[in-house]
């Protein structure tokens, strides 16, 4: 019970197995699920069996909440965020929510302001500006 009580993504307390796990941004999931959807339609005699409700609802969700639509932009977004010392979880929250200001960024991912992090406000601002540029040129 205690382990669960302590979980708090805002402080990046999400359990070791998830800290190390690779997280995915909505836009990355959208690309994968769309590809998967086509694949299943082609290979399976009975596609309805393998396209679960979970799959369908999630595909709808990630399509709606993808900040970047084309594969190049999606790749660039991860590339830019990877230049900064972020945990996978933090990287994906930023890529999903695309905060516009440093203040908003810290509100969305409070753990990036924790002491000992090599991220000052200037770096956060640069990161968010670079992210917003991808969107502009997409």
């Amino acid at each position, binding site marked *: 019970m205690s382990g669960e009580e302590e979980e708090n*993504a*805002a402080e990046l307390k999400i359990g070791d197995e*998830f800290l190390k*796990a690779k*997280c995915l941004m909505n836009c990355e999931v959208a690309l994968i699920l769309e590809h998967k959807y086509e694949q299943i339609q082609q290979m399976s005699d009975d596609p309805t069996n393998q396209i679960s*409700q*979970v799959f369908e*609802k999630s595909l709808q969700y990630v399509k709606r909440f993808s900040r970047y639509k084309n594969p190049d932009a999606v790749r660039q977004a991860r590339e830019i965020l990877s230049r900064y010392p972020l945990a996978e979880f933090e990287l994906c929250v930023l890529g*999903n929510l695309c905060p516009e200001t440093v203040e908003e960024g810290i509100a*969305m991912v409070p753990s990036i302001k924790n002491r000992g992090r090599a991220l000052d406000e200037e770096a956060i601002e640069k990161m968010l500006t670079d992210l917003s540029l991808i969107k502009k040129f997409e």
Partner: protein
Amino acid sequence: MFLKSQLSWNVIIPAENLDVEGLMLQKAIVIRLLDDFASKKASKSLGYFMAVTTLERIGEGKVREHTGDVLFPVEFSCITFKIFRGEILDGVVEKILKHGVFLRCGPTDKVYLSHQKMADYKYVPGENPIFMNEKMSRIEKDTVVRFIVVGARYVEAEKEFQAVVSLEGDYLGPISQNAV
């Protein structure tokens, strides 16, 4: 959050399907794995099972006594979706009730935002009830809302997650459709 995980499962191929060989057998195993994966739905530790992404390895089959079915150990990567306490997410309003609203988020539609967690919003009854605050910001069906997760639990019987969320915090609340 969507997560990429590696799993090892056993896939059972019934004896009557074993007259196939080579590639056909591999296809039978893959199809069986995809079927199993789709019907498994969710687990407490990993969250909802979205999709198998890559098949890493099919191990040596073991014949089961009595039935003659063959069991293949299979390693694969997959995507799952898990809701974490403290996580900030976007959701879509599904239903408005007097005491709060239900939102859809990823595969789940059991995300509950109580009126106590959005104190400045008041319930406005009517044919299409809404929640509205003094700045005329509205929460109605299909509104996109940004929230923070206060608690999440797994219900084994339904194999689903339920979450309680809040708007108490900076930059939380309804967001305009154009922004998304």
